[in-house]
């Protein structure tokens, strides 16, 4: 089980801010593929991966990063702070 968090328009498209996902995905990309296969709303949300960022346990990471040992995965659009 892994905690998956969504922010900004990704959160709105998926409809929840966070959820627990039962997965044995090896990488972030594998997890995205599982989610996309699950329901249309994930497919829509993850349609343009270049416009998304990912953090593993609150550290920015790439889509090819391994999920072993990770407790929290967050997906979000590019940040617009400051």
């Amino acid at each position: 089980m892994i905690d998956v968090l969504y922010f900004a328009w990704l959160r709105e498209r998926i409809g929840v801010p966070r959820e627990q996902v039962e997965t044995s995905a090896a990488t972030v990309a594998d997890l995205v593929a599982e989610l996309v296969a699950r329901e249309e709303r994930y497919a829509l949300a993850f349609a343009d991966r270049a416009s998304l960022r990912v953090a593993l346990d609150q550290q920015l990471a790439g889509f090819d990063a391994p999920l072993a040992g990770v407790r929290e995965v967050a997906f979000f659009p590019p940040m617009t702070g400051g």
Partner: protein
Amino acid sequence: MRLSVQPEAFDPGAEANCFAAGASGAGAIVTFTGLVRNSAAGDLLAMQIEHYPGMTETAIAAMMDQAQARWSLIDALVIHRHGRLLPGDVIMMVATAAAHRAEAFAAAEFLMDYLKSRAPFWKCEITPAGAHWVAAKDSDEAALTRW
């Protein structure tokens, strides 16, 4: 160094004075204050700022550590609001204290560039036409390459 991510409004002038009073030995203090600008059409009702509690603090603290080491800062301060803000409201401020101006300016600009593109905040503009997530600018991402 002090970092606060908070929904509450704050007084940037009072924060700057307090920061300066604590920055013993500083010859140069730079502050940046970011304000909610109205839309081009002048119809902005509010700006909603979402963030990622936990990661926000971790990411900003890491930027501050990096800035302090790189420019030998005497002190640094970051305050960033989240939640619902109105046009003209203060969104955030950065302050840096150093012996000389070049270091204080460089560190403040570095912190701003990183806050813009690497701290997990997202801005949503609310107008009579609806809510609109602010898109990240290529120029903000490009600004990071100078550091």
